[in-house]
């Protein structure tokens, strides 16, 4: 566990001094503010629901870009071989990097705290719904970070890894809108795989075990694949 913490600390330090992380954070906060502003001016509601559905799509594009450097950069600098031959297990490496990404996402959401504060000043938001909305967004972010890590473990080029991460996640977004693409019957079958379908309940204040499991399983699968991808370097 201490190795996981060491990796986490190192990654957090890299984030803290990396101007790209600040740029992404600023873009994320701007887009959050934009969707929040549009949401409340269009609906007049003391709710983050419009923000939540749009922010999930923003996460889908931003988080693979934020996590793209994790393994691709290590590989480019030649430090990945060193890490893999060190006493640090691939599992601890993957977990430490993933936890650091999730922590950064948590900080990003903390940066949006001004938005519910605005709701509280001008209205009477339902704090239970606000809390569950943030929980849903954080769970989605955790899954998206895992996908980003997986793509980063596959390619040497950072940008290509980021784009591949988006490609991995796009189907999970598109099946949420499957009705428009395929027939109702097929849409009904693939809907459980859609990210937005699972976020919707959180936006209403409902924490459903199936939704929590969905994001946890998505994160687990991508983390497992990342672990396998790193381990494959030992026998490839």
């Amino acid at each position, binding site marked *: 566990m201490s190795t996981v913490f060491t990796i986490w600390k190192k990654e957090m330090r890299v984030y803290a001094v990396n101007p790209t992380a600040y740029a992404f954070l*600023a873009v994320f906060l701007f887009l*959050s503010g934009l969707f929040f502003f549009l949401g*409340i001016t269009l609906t*007049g*509601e003391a709710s983050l629901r419009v923000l939540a559905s749009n922010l999930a799509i923003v996460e889908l594009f931003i988080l693979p870009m934020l996590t793209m450097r994790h393994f691709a950069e290590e590989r480019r600098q030649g430090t990945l071989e060193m890490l893999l031959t060190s006493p640090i297990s691939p599992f601890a490496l993957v977990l430490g990097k993933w936890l650091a990404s999730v922590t950064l996402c948590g900080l990003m959401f903390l940066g949006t705290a001004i938005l519910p504060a605005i709701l509280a000043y001008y209205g009477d938001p339902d704090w*239970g719904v606000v809390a569950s909305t943030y929980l849903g967004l954080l769970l989605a972010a955790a899954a998206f970070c895992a996908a980003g890590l997986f793509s980063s473990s596959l390619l040497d080029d950072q940008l290509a890894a980021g784009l591949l991460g988006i490609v991995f996640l796009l189907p999970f977004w598109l099946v949420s809108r499957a009705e428009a693409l395929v027939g109702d019957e097929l849409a009904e079958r693939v809907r459980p795989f859609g990210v937005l379908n699972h976020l919707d309940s959180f936006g209403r204040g409902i*924490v459903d075990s*199936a939704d929590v499991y969905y994001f946890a399983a998505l994160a*687990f699968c991508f983390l497992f694949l990342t672990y396998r991808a790193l381990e494959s370097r030992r026998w490839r």
Partner: protein
Amino acid sequence: MAVSQRKRRFAAGSNAFLMSAVMIAVACVGYLLVDLHRIRYDLSADQGSVLLADTRTKLALLDRDGEPVVVTAFSGQRGKKETYFKDRALQDLIDELDFASQVVEVHFVDLDKDRLTAEKLGVTDYSTVVVQRGQARVDIKDRELFRRVGTGNDRRLDFLGEQAVARAFAQLTADNHRIVYTLVGHGELDPQKSDLGGLSEVAAVLQQDDYELKKLDFVRQTDFPVPRVPDDAAAVAVLRPRVPIPPLEEDLLLAYLAGGGSLLIAVDPDSPVPGILGRLGVAIPSGRVLDKMLVFPYPDRPVPRYKGHVITRDLAEDNLVTVVSSAAPVQPSVPPMEGIRSSIVLETSREGWIDRGGEVRSGQGVYEPDIDGAGPVSMAVALEVSSDSGLVSRGNARVLVSGDSEVFTNGLLAEGPGNASFVLNSFRWLVRDDDRISVVGKPAAVRRLAISVEDIEQIRWLALGMGPILVLLLGAGVWAARRGR
């Protein structure tokens, strides 16, 4: 050497691939299992995001019957201010219905785009819900789904869709139209009056279960050569007669009970006591019920306790209080009369008493052992009368005696969180719809922001500018500090 290395790679690669595939398969199977046994927590303030217990009960009945029900919700008019809220409320509702039932099939249709479905169902109005079961169909219009309340800044739109759809389910359930007759002609509560003392809103609540309130006037009855309770009566309510009911009319009520009928008798401390209660072994002692635990700020409204009867079972489980007004004590005979099983429905705490006047402190009555009756005091009693009593010749009769009539009026219907449920459940029990007994809810309201045009500018700056600028400044600071090293 190269062959063995290739073999080794193939073995390791196959192993990795298989392991990954198995893991993903396990995760998918896990999802299916979790999906089958979902656990849901509603974190919203009023638990308004999940279906009301009453709707769930009706869905369970539909599931039990197994006949498919199709709910088609049509979108609101585009460009209208409230369309977003209306569409979202309807979508949320049908999503929850879809989740909660095996037999309910739901569709949300954009009326402007999917004209074919609209024409097929003959729907031309926006925000309409069509509920179909076999050949039967109920259309729910916009005005039944949404209600505008308040004025000025307090003006808001309430969503009544869930109650309306639940009502449609009840209407579509075969043979569920029940008529409850309310006796009139002796100054009783009027089912058509919409004032606080009327029953118009109670009638609307009863309509949720397709129960209809009709007047029963023995004196002006022209349908039969001899006055009697009509054959289609599912129950008869005698709600606070102002003058004594003539013995002849009481005999007519007893004759109705003898055939296995159901009777609701509600009295107040000052109203005359129908003689029929004596025949049923129920006494209404003089005085009014008081308790140390009162509904603030009223000096005469004791907080009733539920005594485990089916009418109040769900109310007790959900800890929902029913507010009663100045109530008369209702005492079943001890020991009970042969063939009559009595159960207390509402009761005071042990600190309650029957107040018969005397000292008053700070506007509230005080218990005086010499003149008052000791608690706990029952305020509502349910009776099941069998043929052993000699009063019933066919089946079992049900009687609910309430020491408070106001609890059945418009005035108290929304006063306590449990009042609407208590009233509806009382009638459900009387008409023997025991499996429908549940808790009814209140309409869902949207939480609005009170923002002016000036506020919009302020919010725009706070939401769009402040966060990103602060982060960029911080990033620039870190970058500059590192560059200076």
